[in-house]
């Protein structure tokens, strides 16, 4: 398709207002009479709340409400399990859990009021180590329940036979740590109750409808009595899907005071309350024949859900089985257990559990390839699933760009030549590593619907409004939708406005999760635009006296393909559509529900309309005296089906690469008695520009049949291969295999010491 807008690298439709500082985020919103909220957090990882005295706080001038768990609705809310109230009652289960909240006329007064709340705690033995969670004498995080959140057991084929058929069997245990999403905008919410008792909530969210559902549940009121509007969102990375708790507190306070209440986390508070990725210990055993064919894969996982079960069970399921689908595997087995601990709740994070297994799998494949004298690229190619095939878990592949991703990064990094060069022998030693991974585009998990609905209006001036409940969190969803719409309608990009998601006016949508917005939301936009175009051309047919199928829209003008003088400007056609007997404005609705299945009880079924792939190759330099690792080069290819906007895809790919570098080398949560000790950006060291090499991001367009114009999801896939590619490159450089993240200089030097001592043994 010769397209002027789709496929063009244009700045995002939100770029101008953002760089001018004029984008309105939730923290910028003000309303008359607005109060400011602050939250008091429990200090202990596990403690009984014996007594709370708020009388002094209530008496402080300027304080309008002080609430504790006892004030909150008794209905429990939760994602996997209904187990939380808006504020803790009875006991606190992690250090930082919200115990009380204040609404006051200023943030300072609210802050001062917190100091006046007296709480007596009785400390309880805390369960901090997930490895102890299932022991009989372990403290119970939730009284009366054992600490197992979920267990997943999956077995297909004959794993033992697979191992028996292998020439090489390798097993190892990996420790994958938790990561803070580090979005630019900490959580923020403004909630307001109107004279009719309706609650309106502006919040930084990845999904207005899931936010509304959660508010309805936690506040125990009808869904339709709540309106959620998405303000501009400064990043989410999974942390703003459904697990954060501060929006509930803000909304609850608003209902208590009948005044607008704004609750904005500062960075320190966001670390305390934020959602972190799921850490796990992962044991992996794989069998391979001499030619690199994988014969069996066996995995055991112990994952840490923290104090509550949000999306962590779903995350662990992804860790347990998603990567199996990228290869032609027959014999796989997973035993995964998710446990509670008295630590902060863990859950959704970009990659959604994929990063954890991608690290183990790619580390494994690199080791096994080495042992068999094979190139890891060849091992991936040999096993790679192809378009038209169905994977071991029933996933059907309409498009697979895995092999092209491998080709691009292998060439891009100069793999062949660099692998042949003599090994460095000095203090600084270079190495090459690669990894590959897959991700879903969409996921039919919530209530057997993964669809997306778009309402499209074309106004009398020929310009379009898109109403969709899917959310842009900075990743470019609005730009993608606008490009597809402009392209189909034959109008400039600037003539398309994507309306902010609003549960009162937007069609129902699940929002930005599971990389589903481009493939499902984009498809709905395409279908809506096609319908609108049909109406426009039908109207133009009447206006111009030409058959509709002879007409096209080009640059805002409807013209006949055959009669050169038969043209009408789009505004003229759109006005004609309205202003006549029987006329009406152009208003169409389209829903795309992908042809996918819910997983069955055995976790089998084609859950997504498309699957994205990525591969990455990196070159590192290790200082063997300090243990410091420097990335020299990175080549990352993302199979996104079709890049609706290559600039946005490049941005996502590079951002994912950096976040993976952070997880692998820099970011490291430190705890002191179960409390986060480095919850600030001086001590929680996210990568800076200096930590990042020249990043090469390439795009593979595998043309997904289910996708709009061939497109699939981009960006989540790209975070998956970074960490294992780095670990593999480090082993190539210095012969030390790191299986525990993050890769610190201490671990590198310990590995080198062990290698030296092993050499003497």
């Amino acid at each position, binding site marked *: 398709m010769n397209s002027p807008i789709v496929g063009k690298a244009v700045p995002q439709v939100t770029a101008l207002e953002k760089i001018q500082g004029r984008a309105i985020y939730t923290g910028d919103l003000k309303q008359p009479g607005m109060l400011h909220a602050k939250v008091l957090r429990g200090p202990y990882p596990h403690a009984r709340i014996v007594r709370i005295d708020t009388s002094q706080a209530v008496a402080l001038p300027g304080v309008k409400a002080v609430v504790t768990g006892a004030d909150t609705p008794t209905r429990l809310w939760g994602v996997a399990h209904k187990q939380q109230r808006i504020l803790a009652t009875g006991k606190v289960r992690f250090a930082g859990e919200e115990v009380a909240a204040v609404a006051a006329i200023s943030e300072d007064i609210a802050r001062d009021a917190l100091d006046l709340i007296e709480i007596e705690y009785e400390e309880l033995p805390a369960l901090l180590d997930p490895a102890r969670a299932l022991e009989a004498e372990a403290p119970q995080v939730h009284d009366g329940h054992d600490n197992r959140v979920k267990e997943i057991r999956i077995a297909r084929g004959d794993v033992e036979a697979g191992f028996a058929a292998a020439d090489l069997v390798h097993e190892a245990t990996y420790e994958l740590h938790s990561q803070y999403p580090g979005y630019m905008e900490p959580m923020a919410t403004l909630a307001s109750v109107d004279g009719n008792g309706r609650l309106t909530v502006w919040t930084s969210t990845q999904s207005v409808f899931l936010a509304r559902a959660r508010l309805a549940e936690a506040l125990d009121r009808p869904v339709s009595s709540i309106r959620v509007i998405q303000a501009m969102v400064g990043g989410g990375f999974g942390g703003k899907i459904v697990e954060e708790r501060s929006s509930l507190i803000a909304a609850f306070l608003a209902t208590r005071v009948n005044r607008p209440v704004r609750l904005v986390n500062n960075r320190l508070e966001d670390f305390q309350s934020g959602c972190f990725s799921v850490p796990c210990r992962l044991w992996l055993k794989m069998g391979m024949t001499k030619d690199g064919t994988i014969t069996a894969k066996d995995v055991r996982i112990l994952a840490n859900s923290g104090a509550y079960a949000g999306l962590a069970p779903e995350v662990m399921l992804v860790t347990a089985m998603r990567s199996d689908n990228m290869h032609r595997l027959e014999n796989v087995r997973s035993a995964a257990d998710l446990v509670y601990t008295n630590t902060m709740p863990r859950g959704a994070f970009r990659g959604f559990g994929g990063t954890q297994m991608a690290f183990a799998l790619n580390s494994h494949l690199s080791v096994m390839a080495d042992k068999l004298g094979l190139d890891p690229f060849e091992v991936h190619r040999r096993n790679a699933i192809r378009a038209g095939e169905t994977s071991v878990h029933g996933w059907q592949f309409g498009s697979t760009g895995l092999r092209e991703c491998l080709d691009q990064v292998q060439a891009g990094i100069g793999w062949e030549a660099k692998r042949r060069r003599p090994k460095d022998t000095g203090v600084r030693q270079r190495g090459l590593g690669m990894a590959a991974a897959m991700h879903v585009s969409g996921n039919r998990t919530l209530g057997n619907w993964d669809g997306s609905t778009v309402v499209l209006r074309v106004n009398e001036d020929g310009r379009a409004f898109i109403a969709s409940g899917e959310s842009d969190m900075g990743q470019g969803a609005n730009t993608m939708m606008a490009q597809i719409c402009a392209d189909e309608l034959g109008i400039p990009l600037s003539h398309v406005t994507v309306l902010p998601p609003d549960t009162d006016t937007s069609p129902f949508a699940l929002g930005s999760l599971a990389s589903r917005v481009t493939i499902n939301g984009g498809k709905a936009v395409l279908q809506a635009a096609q319908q609108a175009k049909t109406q426009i051309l039908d109207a133009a047919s009447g206006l111009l006296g030409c058959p509709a199928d002879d007409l096209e829209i080009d640059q805002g003008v409807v013209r006949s393909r055959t009669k050169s003088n038969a043209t009408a400007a789009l505004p003229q056609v759109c006005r004609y559509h309205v202003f006549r007997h029987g006329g009406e404005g152009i208003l169409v609705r389209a829903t795309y529900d992908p042809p996918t299945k819910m997983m069955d009880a055995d976790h089998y079924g084609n859950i997504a309309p498309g699957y994205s792939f990525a591969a990455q190759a990196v070159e590192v330099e290790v200082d063997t005296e300090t243990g410091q690792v420097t990335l020299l080069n990175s080549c990352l290819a993302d199979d996104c089906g079709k890049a609706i906007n290559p600039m946005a895809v490049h941005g996502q790919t590079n951002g994912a690469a950096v976040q993976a570098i952070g997880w692998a080398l820099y970011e490291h949560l430190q705890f002191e008695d179960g409390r986060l000790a480095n919850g600030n950006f*001086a001590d929680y060291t996210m990568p800076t520009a*200096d930590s990042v090499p020249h990043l090469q991001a390439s795009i593979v367009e595998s043309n997904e049949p289910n996708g709009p114009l061939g497109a699939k999801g981009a960006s989540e896939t790209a975070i998956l291969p970074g960490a294992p590619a780095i670990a593999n490159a480090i082993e190539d450089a210095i012969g030390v295999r790191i299986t525990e993240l993050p890769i610190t200089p201490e671990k590198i030097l310990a590995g080198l010491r062990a290698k030296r001592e092993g050499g003497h043994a």
Partner: protein
Amino acid sequence: MIPLPKFRYVEPTTLAEAAAILAAEGEDCQILGGGTDLVPSMRQGIFAPKTVLSLQAIDGLGRLEWSESDGLSIGAGVTLRRLETDATLRKLFPMLAQAVSEVASPSIRHMATLGGNLCLDTRCYYYNQSEDWKACSDLCLKVGGEFCKASPGGKAKKCFAVFSADVVPALIALKAQVTLVAKEGERTLDLAAFYSGDGARPNALKPGEILTGVVVPADRVGIKGSYLKYRIRQTIDYPIAGVALALRFGASGVVSEARLVLGGVASKPVLVKGIAELLEGQTLDRARIERAAQLARKAAIPQANTAGQRAHRKQMIHEFTTRAFEDLAREAR
């Protein structure tokens, strides 16, 4: 954004006026240089001064002057960016320029002042926390508790918070002198003596005193120096081990002066003992460098209160000391 607590802001135009205000306000007043450390610390609730006294309107604190008789005089108000880019300083004392350029990031160096860097507060996982965090358990010694929680066993009655300015080790290696001014008068002391080693009160500033500047003696010209910094990221981060080495070479590579100062591994910059005795009158060879690195390693007393494991940071002191010597030995050849 975390709001700043309320405070009174004063901006005197003379040192005498500043000293008078400081004398009157006492401990409730804090001095603002570039604000790059004070302001975030105030946001975090670590400091809550009633008065913030800015030095920026005072004439003379922005001086950066070289004379062959008096040496290099640097006013407390000179920004790190100016130090790092000053042609004279770069030519005469490249190690100092190097150390300055390792501080934080360019945007911070544009604001940060020499005086602020010299008076940098010590840091610690138990101290650089929000009030809520600190209130969760017994307070640490630095904020009024009984014991230093970062000390081995957590039972020391001395504060072990870490001193982590980059510029200071370089200045001490260059035998800089510091001038302190109070209402009653001024005093000058060796910069090395300015630091107490007590993490709770890391420097010798008395109530009412203002650090007005340093002087690097003129006879330091010709010293070869190297400042090497170890940290997690190559920008922004404080040093978790820093090494400033100053050597003077005589004829045929014989060391005539040697000073080695460590940063980021104790509650003060550590002037390593025994270095002069080991090296002066000798040529640098592998064995002597190794011996010097061992002395440095022994002098470093890092605690588990910042990034990097203790043993690792000691090892890095050893490693970076070796590298600094090797760099200078190469230069001397």
